[in-house]
């Protein structure tokens, strides 16, 4: 009924004969014949060094320790732990990790997630020496790299579709364009926490469909040459989103745009959004204007927006606690869903969006001015055709009270008009 599946790696039980007290006793090697997942249970309970030493016991044992799901090393040894692996720079330890990665590559992995940290920040794990990605160049489809150091010519992976780079370090003469050219068929690219000194993100790949750039210190230029680009996500990015700094060859294919906490220059938000004429989904979340006012504080109020997209179906606008927009002119005849967090912004033109079916308004009564009633009446009129309207008012007292009494003060009104 529940027979343990036969271990494909099981081998013949070895019986050796020894003489003990004049008697011949058959001795059976039972431990080696256990399934690998049970042997792994033993090795997970011994020190890493002792586990590694079992590789020499017999051929059966050679690779078992290296296949352990988690390998912890104490501070003097190689620290390595997959998904948060830490390595102390030491030639023999590094070799071992590299060998381990090479085993995966030789076995034609399709998806590879590498997260290798060295304990010495100055000397990151170098992914470009001693590891041969060429052996799986035709099979690797998804590659994610975290915390390692890469060089411009680290990779040549023609079959790769998805690349995720997180907290990557680069060699001095790193050129992003050369690096990314190693992935000619890439469709999805996610870059998070790229180093400060990176000036130009040039993505010449023709098939790129999805690009997500987050928390990147890039203050220079972002250039995308794909003709199939559909989705763009920028979060916590200090890029000046004007025409010069953003070069996107084909903007008319972009359907989804998300800007989250992006610092924008005066007037550039407008021109940036309007460069994508066929947008279907637009999310603007907590963007700030990069202008100092007299007192040394950021002037966070965004200039008026003009959203004119004939295909726009979903628009989400979330303004942070300290910023506001006076006016957003909306010209979107196909708008179906509108979500807004913020103050009393006026939305001229929204009444013409006859297909508006779903509305969600988050308001903070505390920061509303005396005109709130007229404002609300006007905006509710725009939603006359909606099937679903949700009005959420959160009363924000001082912080302490908000935490303790959020459930009580949060009122949610849902009205089905029509």
């Amino acid at each position, binding site marked *: 009924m529940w*027979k343990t599946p036969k271990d494909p790696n099981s081998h013949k039980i070895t019986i050796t004969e020894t003489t003990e007290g004049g008697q011949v006793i058959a001795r059976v090697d039972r431990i080696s014949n256990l399934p690998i997942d049970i042997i792994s249970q033993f090795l997970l309970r011994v020190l890493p060094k002792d586990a590694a030493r079992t590789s020499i016991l017999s051929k059966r044992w050679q690779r078992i320790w290296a296949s352990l799901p988690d390998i912890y090393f104490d501070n003097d040894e190689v620290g390595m732990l997959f998904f948060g692996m830490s390595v102390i720079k030491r030639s023999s330890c590094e070799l071992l990790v590299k060998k381990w990665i090479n085993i995966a590559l030789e076995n034609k992995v399709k998806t590879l997630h590498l997260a290798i940290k060295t304990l010495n920040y100055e000397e990151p794990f170098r992914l470009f020496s001693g590891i041969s990605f060429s052996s799986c160049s035709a099979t690797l489809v998804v590659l994610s790299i975290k915390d390692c150091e890469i060089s411009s010519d680290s990779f040549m992976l023609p079959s790769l579709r998805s690349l995720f780079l997180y907290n990557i370090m680069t060699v001095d003469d790193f050129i992003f364009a050369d690096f990314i050219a190693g992935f000619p068929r890439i469709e999805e690219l996610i870059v998070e926490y790229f180093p400060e000194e990176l000036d130009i993100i040039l993505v010449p790949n023709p098939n790129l469909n999805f690009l997500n750039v987050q928390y990147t210190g890039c203050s220079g230029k972002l250039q995308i040459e794909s003709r199939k680009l559909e989705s763009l996500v920028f979060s916590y990015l200090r890029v000046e989103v004007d025409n010069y700094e953003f070069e996107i060859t084909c903007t008319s294919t972009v359907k989804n745009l998300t800007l989250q906490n992006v610092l924008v220059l005066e007037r550039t938000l407008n021109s940036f959004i309007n460069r994508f004429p066929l947008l279907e989904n637009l999310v603007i979340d907590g963007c700030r204007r990069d202008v100092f006012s007299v007192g040394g504080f950021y002037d966070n109020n965004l200039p008026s927006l003009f959203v004119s997209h004939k295909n726009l179906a979903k628009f989400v606008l979330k303004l942070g606690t300290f910023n506001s927009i006076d006016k957003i002119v909306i010209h979107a005849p196909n708008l179906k869903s509108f979500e807004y967090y913020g103050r009393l912004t006026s939305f001229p033109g929204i009444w013409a969006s006859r297909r508006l079916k779903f509305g969600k308004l988050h308001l903070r009564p505390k920061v509303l001015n005396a005109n709130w009633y007229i404002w609300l009446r006007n905006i509710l009129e725009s939603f006359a055709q909606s099937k679903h309207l949700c009005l959420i008012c959160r009363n924000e007292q001082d912080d302490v009270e908000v935490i303790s009494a959020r459930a009580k003060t949060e009122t949610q009104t849902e009205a089905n008009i029509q």
Partner: protein
Amino acid sequence: MASSSSSSKTGLKKMLTLKSSDGDEFELEESIVIQCQTIKHMVEDGFSLIPLQNVDTKTLTKIIEYMKKHAEKTESNKEEIKNFNKEFVKGSFDDQFELVSAANYLHINGLMDLLCQSIADRINNKSVRAVREIFNISNDYTPDEEEKVRDEHKWAHEGGEFDESLD
């Protein structure tokens, strides 16, 4: 006994029957047997006779001994359980691998942990020779191959004295 197996309502404890691969049957209270996750799931599915085709009578007897003792576990007899565990491991030395396979397959986490730790203790800091001897592992490397493997894991063989004792 048959009447007792069906009614917890009457205050009688619900009984379950475990059947070993040799065909021997053991009747036990449900509260003892549910330490074993695999059986617990079967009980939840309504089984009361549980055939264990991978566990022979000898191993099952040992496992029942362990489960009975651990079902008595309270805050106050921790020391007693600890001593029991110690003796249990010592007493089951010859069957340890049958036990560990059974514990793994029955998902008795406490027993699995106890046995694995006891085996791990006999690998920790031991010399290669000692480990081979303790577990009867025969070396099938040629001297050249062995040297190569040793070289690849040089760091693991360096430094410190390794324990040559066979206990």
